[in-house]
């Protein structure tokens, strides 16, 4: 049934210099796979592999899809839910991120959105409202094992902070198993590359932010690994000349002060880059220093 609704699941193939660009739409983003080959059939095959995997992840982990596993887990909050190996592994990763960030990166924090609507308006919620919701936030409150998961009623999990990056890394993994040719996977600005290009040329990637002027777009040169970008683009609140960013401090429930508008981080894998970019933003004014101290390559826009 769910397949009927998703009518526009097509992969387009466009020739470009040195290869083909396969594009499709998934996880609310334009997704592209750039493949350096003159074999169109192979490029299409690889594009389909990436797209099918992205759509699979979307169907399984999107909180917007009422048929997804994520929705099922949220609906069954208060009960013990059975989970599969992949979900367990995602929980394990989230758990590591939670630990590494000392609680700042929390996949149960999405529920705070009920208080905060980052629509550019001045609609700042009441302290009481935020505090009430904070009772339902906290990865430390859930329990899980290899095949089960439990959180208390009212809590929600959200893979939004990881899903796209995970899909990028999965695409890299699957395509590299099938073909030994250079390619780039870009899902809405979260991207990874694989293989050595002709003449060892790097991939040049422009990362644009719709709300900023073009001169501020980040040009990234990439030979290996991944980059991911976190930022608040159009997502903020303005009240009394104060810009509330959409980056929330999970401990207080209130926006982080003075984060960069956008931060792009390089890491061996996209899911690492994504986490680091988010974690950096949470540091607010200290974002760049934090990355510098960790010796992590990054580009920031303020």
């Amino acid at each position, binding site marked *: 049934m769910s397949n009927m609704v998703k009518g526009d699941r097509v992969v387009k193939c466009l020739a470009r210099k040195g290869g083909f660009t396969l594009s499709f739409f998934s996880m609310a983003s334009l997704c592209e796979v750039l493949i*350096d*080959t*003159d*074999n*169109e*059939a*192979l490029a*299409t*095959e690889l594009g389909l592999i990436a797209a*099918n*995997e992205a759509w*699979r992840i979307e169907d399984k982990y999107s909180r917007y899809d009422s048929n997804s596993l994520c929705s099922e887990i949220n609906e069954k909050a208060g009960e013990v839910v059975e989970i599969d*190996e*992949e979900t367990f*592994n*995602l929980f*394990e*990763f989230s758990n*590591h*991120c939670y630990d*590494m*960030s*000392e609680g*700042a990166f929390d996949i149960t924090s999405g529920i705070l959105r009920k208080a905060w609507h980052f629509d550019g308006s001045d609609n700042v919620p009441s302290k009481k409202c935020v505090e009430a919701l904070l009772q339902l936030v906290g990865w430390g409150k859930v329990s899980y094992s290899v095949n089960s998961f439990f959180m208390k009623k009212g809590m929600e999990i959200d893979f939004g902070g990881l899903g796209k990056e*995970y899909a990028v*890394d*999965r695409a890299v*993994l*699957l395509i590299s198993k*099938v*073909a*030994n*040719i*250079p390619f780039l996977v870009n899902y809405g600005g979260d991207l990874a590359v694989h*293989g*050595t*290009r*002709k003449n060892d040329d790097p991939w040049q990637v422009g990362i644009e932010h719709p709300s900023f002027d073009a001169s501020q777009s980040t040009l990234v040169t990439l030979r290996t690994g991944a980059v991911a970008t976190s930022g608040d683009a159009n997502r903020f609140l303005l009240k009394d000349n104060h810009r509330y960013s959409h980056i929330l*401090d999970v*401990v207080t429930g209130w926006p*982080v002060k003075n984060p960069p508008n956008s931060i792009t981080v390089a*890491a*061996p*894998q996209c*899911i*690492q880059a994504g*986490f*680091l970019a988010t*974690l950096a933003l*949470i*540091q*607010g004014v*200290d974002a760049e220093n*934090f990355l510098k*101290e*960790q*010796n*992590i390559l990054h580009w920031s826009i303020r």
Partner: protein
Amino acid sequence: MQLKAKKTNLKAMLTTASCALLGSTANVSAQETWQFDTAIMHYAEVDRVSATEAIIAGTKTFNNDEVLSLKLTIDALTGASPNGATTQPTPQTFTRPSGNGQYNVKAGDTPLDDTFHDTRVQLTGQWTQPLLKDYTVSVGGNFSKEYDYMSASLNGNVARDFNKKNTTLSAGMAYAYDVIEPEGGIPKPLSEMVVGDSNDPNFNDDFNKTRIGSDESKSTIDLLFGVTQVINRQMIVQLNYSYSTVSGYMTDPFKIISSVNNNGESQAYLYENRPDERTKHAFFGQTKYHFDSGILDASYRYMTDDWQIDSHTFDFRYLIPFTNGHFIEPHFRMYTQSAAEFYQPFIAQDEAKPNFVSADYRIGELDTYTVGLKYGMPLGDGNNLSFRLEYYHQTPKDNGTQAIGVLKEVELYEQVDAIIAQVTYSF
């Protein structure tokens, strides 16, 4: 917010965390489809044997990791093969192995028997599946038939993974049973080849006196023990020990040996005779190393047996991928063996006949090398096409036997050149 433990190495911790996630095997619409490999290979020796071999192999992997492989091989052999007799400065006449007619060899030429043409059909099947945790078992069978030869075999293998599948120990056993039924029957070992007028009424009687039956058989037991070890992300190593014992008829009924006088002149041709037991030990080591620019496949094999044959085989391949998915793979192989203790290029007429003797250069002292190149390309949809061209050179050597008389003037150990051409298509 600020991280208290700012100095923790996030990069290292993340690597561990994300690798655990991406190393996982999420179900990606597994398919149960057949994968086929087809190949046609042509082997051609200069002025001698040529063979064409065609293979179609199908592999089906089931969702629970069970694998079924079936393979059909058909090959056709034509041309001339050395019969074992020495070259002479004079023309020579030999009786065909079937007893039907004779063939002549020019002065100075290596005696070749041109009666060989045979077609072989071979069927192979193998079933492999996981069993319990960490175990893989495999059983298979093989049957092949040609005009005068039949072979059937069964094999079984058990492998166990240790240490996160980084180490695999395996043990296997195979049993084979072969029957040879040459046209003209089995020659009596060390009897003299009857050379004369085959239309003579007495010829058949004389020929039949050199025969002891219509068929012979041999059985082979192979044991194989192996260890495979992943060294690091780029490198894997395999070490095997194999033991093989053959009992039964291992003589080549088509091979003879020249009995020569003091001047090296051929006086008679005797049918060869080999021991009916042979035990071999082989040690095989292989490594594959993934460099940034390609993949090295290097192997070495040492074999020793109770026929006193020792051999060393070195094999190197280096696969160089191109950015368009094509690849090129140069290949170099080197082989050297010592002679079987009963190998002799000829027998001196006035010396006592040995129990066992063969002049087959393939069990004499021999060096060979192969150089080749393979070129492969993906055709899309997972189909692949590859071409292989190799040059194979054999240098038979004397095993210390002194040539006498006229044999000093002729080429006793003629070198062999062969070309191997192959096309493989996988879909």
